[in-house]
């Protein structure tokens, strides 16, 4: 198992360096000059030139690339063109917020997806199963930004049950711990739901198929022939096998969740990476765009690495290879 994990890690490292390269060159393919942002009659051309120099934009492309790669390896992502702060600082504030959101969405994805998928499989072809299948179809065919707006309309504007935006109430710092926790939970409900529900629908659909596939296997018949109860047969022998492909699916859903966070964070004004990315993209803030892309990609790589390791733990056929 350790050789397997090590091998996976060794594949991941060049992948990450490759990602850095791809990001850098994609950005510099673009026409348009980030300095255009500062072009202003009140700033003299000399000052512009100086700023260009300070930001390193006067250097040839390959020098910029090498400089960027080495500083990135040291965790230095440069200075934001617009915020005039180190990119690392901006991200340090944003990343935990995004992780909080995506992690909870991932949890929702797994729990709701598995539970609903198992129910649908056990009650195959019943009304419950059909309802679940149809709702799942509609949910993953739904644009998340629209679902978010509809939820805000219903739960915030019409019913007033949940806050429409931000991570916490304005005066949250004055609350006691429990009150603050509750405040955070109410702010989390809608974004987490909107972010996680589409992948949960996909997971449920997949889980249903996976469990039904497993139930047809010979070893399930063996388990029944032993005299085990149907519950044990399905939940011990069936579920354990059916969950294995779900792990891979979860690994694959990480890029979707991170991509979805752009939309969710924009709608709910959640101060995370996605919102930083959208702001930076509109402002042509290259260092920030580069860093956000790279970090998102690295998260995806780490996520799939984690999924592979979990897979190897669940499936003895890999564990003992």
């Amino acid at each position, binding site marked *: 198992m350790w050789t397997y994990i090590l091998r996976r890690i060794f594949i991941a490292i060049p992948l990450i360096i490759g990602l850095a390269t791809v990001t850098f060159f*994609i950005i510099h393919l*673009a026409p348009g000059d980030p300095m255009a942002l500062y072009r202003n009659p009140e700033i003299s051309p000399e000052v512009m030139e100086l700023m260009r120099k300070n930001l390193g934009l006067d250097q040839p492309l390959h020098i910029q690339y090498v400089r960027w790669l080495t500083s990135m390896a040291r965790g230095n992502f440069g200075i934001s063109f617009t915020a005039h702060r180190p990119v690392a600082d901006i991200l340090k504030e944003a990343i935990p917020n995004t992780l909080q959101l995506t992690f909870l969405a991932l949890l929702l994805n797994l729990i709701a997806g598995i539970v609903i998928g198992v129910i649908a499989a056990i009650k195959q072809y019943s009304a419950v199963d059909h309802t679940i299948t149809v709702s799942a*179809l509609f949910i993953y065919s739904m*644009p998340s930004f*629209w679902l978010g707006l*509809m939820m805000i309309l219903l739960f915030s504007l019409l019913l007033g049950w949940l806050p429409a935006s931000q991570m916490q109430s304005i005066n949250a710092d004055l609350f006691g711990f429990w009150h603050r926790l509750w405040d955070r939970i109410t702010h989390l409900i809608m974004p987490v739901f909107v972010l996680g529900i589409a992948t949960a629908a996909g997971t449920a659909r*997949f889980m249903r198929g996976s469990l039904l596939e497993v139930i047809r296997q010979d070893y399930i018949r063996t388990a029944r022939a032993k005299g085990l109860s149907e519950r044990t047969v399905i939940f011990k022998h069936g579920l354990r096998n059916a969950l294995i492909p779900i792990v891979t699916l979860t690994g694959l859903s990480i890029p979707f969740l991170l*991509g*979805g966070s752009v939309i969710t964070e*924009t709608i709910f004004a959640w101060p995370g990476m996605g919102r930083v990315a959208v702001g930076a993209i509109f402002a042509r803030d290259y260092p920030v765009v580069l860093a956000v892309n790279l970090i998102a990609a690295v998260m995806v790589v780490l996520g799939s690495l984690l999924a592979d390791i979990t897979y190897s733990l669940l499936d003895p056929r890999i564990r003992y290879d």
Partner: protein
Amino acid sequence: MFVMNRKAEESKGKRARAVWASLFFPGTGLMALGERRLGLWLLIPYASFLVFTIYHWSSVTAAFTTGDLERLVAALFLSFVLAGFWFYSLVKTLRWDKDEGTGMSHWQITKSQFRKNKPAVAGMLVVLSLYAVAFLGPFLAPFHPNAQEDIVRSRYLPPLAELFTPVVTLKDGRRIWVRQVREVGEEISYVPISEPSSGDGGPLVPEAITVTRDQVQKIAKTLRPRWWNQKVHWLGTDKFGRDILSRIIYGSRISLSIGFVAVGIAITFGTFVGAIAGYYGGRVDDVIMRLVDMILAFPRLFLVLTLIALFTPKIWLIIAVLGATGWMGTARLVRGQILSLKEQEFVQAAHALGLSIPRIIFRHILPNAMAPIIVTATLRVGTTILVAAALSFLGLGVQPPTASWGNIINQGRDNLLGAWWIATFPGLAIVLTVVAYNLFGDGLRDALDPRLRD
């Protein structure tokens, strides 16, 4: 012998009558010959399109003379659809007893499998109708998508609202749409506004005109809407007084074409790359597949946003970027297919015959890998439409005032509580489209290759 002859003659006469029937009413001939189902499937859409054409006859004929490209395309579409149904039905009637089965071909099995899947057939019909709506937009939309009518009165109208606009006749005989501004005794003052069917916004600083009361009433009466009044704002208006239904109809062209074309590009490119990687193998395969891994590591939306923001958002750019970020899955799929097909006898035989490599790939290998490619393409259109809508929503898609489903929803955010209809209906349109595509794709998958399930 005699009996045989009479039978043959009878069936000949029957066919001749059927051909005549098909000449005038496509499908009826087939129904007469016993192909009831196929006949109905041809007759019903033909009849609907025909009724539509007759109803909009004046606009359709006008479309060929005025220089309006959109209307011309719509009119041409109508003509082609009608001609297509007519021709197909005629050919089917003429060849009625010729294609009587010598067993079921692979294609026929697929077709009958697909037909049994009712949701999938429904999905396909919805998809086709959506494209028809998109093409016929100029005839179907009750308003021009950018027409504002009398903005003071027409903004934020709820669904089913009707706006009656007075019309006055000027001395030179022109009739213009007006809004009342003042009323003194018998005399009423109006300002002219733009006509609801045009998108020009009307004069910026309108000059007031004054007419007497009975002059207005007379004309307003003649223009009173008929009972099937088209000028109802079925889905309400936005803050500029533009009709939401019309904007959704016009926006469908953007969303549907982006999804379709971008997937077309992605699938073509992905098939090409995957075929090369799979066929040549070795170093080429390694390099291509590592690249695929890398691009797949980026969350697609991040990558798309970055690429689009680097340039100015134009529709062709959005299509190109969505195509450029969507080919990796296809490349992997095709590569796998080719790796397994490459070893099969018929490919080895093609080699032995000395056929060129591109010929082997495109003539002998790819056609055999087509089924899963078509299935993924269909299922991919749905997700691509979602991504394109998300881009529009973020303001990086098609730029206003051109309508797209995403940007209508985005504009709905401004007044979500007061004008819920703006954001709600385009969203439903997206859901309908994507659900239809997914049902269609699932059905294709089940029919073409049951092994592809989940």
